[in-house]
């Protein structure tokens, strides 16, 4: 039952919110309650997986290789908890920042169906079912992306929709070929049968299909162009949700498929992953350095951070995968927090163009601190969460003797710090270009609460790095042992 709740709760919340179509206050209350419930369900799942090991549930009581299996190991459970956290933060933030028109056209139901799709993707143990959850997630994200119909949203939406649909078609083809070769869809079953397949070329081709399909969704180099072109166009809570969860589902799928389905040696695909990881880090951060609009800058950063997540997968040692799991938690929280900061900055000064911003350090000390915590964490300064995440990845890289990617990871860290100082200098430190220097608007408390929560969590993640990293290590061992 604990296994179904993270899927069932957002579904019920979404349906209930749909039924309360004309009553916005009811929808808003339902949305926050549902997201809090999802977080609770995630924590319950994590606790039960921690105590009792991997949980599986044959849906409809069909036994494992025939029916669809839901299964949760520690990695899935951690991801569901993170989904709950981001869901809750975004649901609360939305109360104060989504305009009534968007609320009237089903913003809250969409939000929760999206969360359902994300949780479903984390919990399924069946490849085709994974495709279905991806589509649930995609179609709701399409609508969330374009809801409101502003010109930039539609332009970004066309690119987002086109690239993601193409990725879905490739994913579907990959699943089809894999089924043709192995006659199975259950991930554990496919992995077992793949060992008996004597055509390494064919298996590598299937692996590449999955790598490209998930790579588009995860925004890897050179498949990331849709992301900076579209992520900054919808309202801030939607961007925070997308940046926190959607690309990470792509990375999750990559990790899942490349550790558990293609469990054996993949020949040339394995080093390819490391090369792509390095290039993703570099191009992302270089793109970010060139930007002057806060949300676009942060969008490029998403790409750069995806490279670190992939680096752990490319090394594929327990320590490296533990680094990926820990980095996942860190980057989801820090990134969403930074987008929420950009929303508040926009609210206060009416723009998020760095050239027109300034003086926030003087007028908004709290916001300054709440920006600095996730920003420095993202750059990897101790004792914040990013430091320990990168430390684990770098150590794993050194142990594996992959010095080039370690050097790239460290260099990109410097550039990350540089681009974060750029936001700091332009938006916070330099005097405001406006003559009076006063801030234009005020922010309701509902915008501050989720930001405070996420920023505090990046600190907690750093301070409690020991036990949390032990958890990640156990998750990684489960991934490798299968």
């Amino acid at each position: 039952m604990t296994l179904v709740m993270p899927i069932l709760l957002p579904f019920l919340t979404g349906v209930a919110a749909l039924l309360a179509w004309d009553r916005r206050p009811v929808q808003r209350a339902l949305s926050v309650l549902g997201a809090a419930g999802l977080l609770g369900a995630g924590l319950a799942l994590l606790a039960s997986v921690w105590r009792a090991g991997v949980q599986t549930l044959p849906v409809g009581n069909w036994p494992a290789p025939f029916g669809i299996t839901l299964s949760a190991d520690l990695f899935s459970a951690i991801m569901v908890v993170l989904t709950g956290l981001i869901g809750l933060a975004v649901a609360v933030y939305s109360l104060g920042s989504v305009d009534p028109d968007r609320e009237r056209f089903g913003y809250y139901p969409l939000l929760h169906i999206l969360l359902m799709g994300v949780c479903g993707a984390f919990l399924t143990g069946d490849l085709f079912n994974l495709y279905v959850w991806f589509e649930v997630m995609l179609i709701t994200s399409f609508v969330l992306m374009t809801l409101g119909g502003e010109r930039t949203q539609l332009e970004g939406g066309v690119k987002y929709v086109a690239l993601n649909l193409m990725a879905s078609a490739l994913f579907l083809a990959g699943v089809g070929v894999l089924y043709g070769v192995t006659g199975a869809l259950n991930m554990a079953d496919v992995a077992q049968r793949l060992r008996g397949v004597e055509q390494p070329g064919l298996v590598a081709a299937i692996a590449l299909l999955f790598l490209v399909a998930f790579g588009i969704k995860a925004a890897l180099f050179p498949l990331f162009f849709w992301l900076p072109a579209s992520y900054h166009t919808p309202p801030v809570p939607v961007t925070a949700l997308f940046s926190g969860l959607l690309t990470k589902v792509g990375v999750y799928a990559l990790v899942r498929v490349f550790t558990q389905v293609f469990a054996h040696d993949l020949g040339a695909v394995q080093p390819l992953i490391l090369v792509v990881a390095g290039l993703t880090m570099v191009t992302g951060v270089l793109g970010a350095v060139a930007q002057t609009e806060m949300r676009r800058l942060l969008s490029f950063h998403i790409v750069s951070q995806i490279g670190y997540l992939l680096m752990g997968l490319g090394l594929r040692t327990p320590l490296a995968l533990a680094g990926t799991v820990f980095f996942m938690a860190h980057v989801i929280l820090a990134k969403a927090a930074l987008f929420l900061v950009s929303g508040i900055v926009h609210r206060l000064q009416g723009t998020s163009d760095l050239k027109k911003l300034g003086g926030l350090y003087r007028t908004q000390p709290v916001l300054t601190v709440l920006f600095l915590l996730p920003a420095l964490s993202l750059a990897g300064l101790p004792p914040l969460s990013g430091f320990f995440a990168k430390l684990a990845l770098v150590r794993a890289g050194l142990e594996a003797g992959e010095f080039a990617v370690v050097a790239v990871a460290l260099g990109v860290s410097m550039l990350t710090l540089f681009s974060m100082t750029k936001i700091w200098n332009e938006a916070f430190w330099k005097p405001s270009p406006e003559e009076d220097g006063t801030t234009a608007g005020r922010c309701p408390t509902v915008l501050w609460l989720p930001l405070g929560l996420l920023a505090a969590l990046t600190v907690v993640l750093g301070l409690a790095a020991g036990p949390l990293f032990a958890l990640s290590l156990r998750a990684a061992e489960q991934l490798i042992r299968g």
Partner: protein
Amino acid sequence: METILAFVIGGLYAAGLYMLLRRSLVKLVIGLALLGQAANLLIFTLGRLLRGRPPLVPPDAAALAGSSADPVPQALILTAIVIGFGVHAFTIILIKRAYQTVDSDDLDDFRTTDQ
């Protein structure tokens, strides 16, 4: 039969990709639809093509004897067709709205979010 279908699938992929590479919004959607159909046919073909051997256990037997058609690929395709229907319906409405708002069918005019 497999050979013919292989050429059909290849043709669909090629046509789909060609359409995706055009600048027109409408052709983009057609290309995406073709790619989806190509993937469906691919699954169909890879599920082994067998005629007249339904996967039904005869009344006097306990299990299937010999090879029979695999129903799973067809279930997968059915699911994929339904999903594709919904997604493409959305995409068509999206490009209609995009066309009305941007006042152009040319993807080169969709650059304001790229700079």
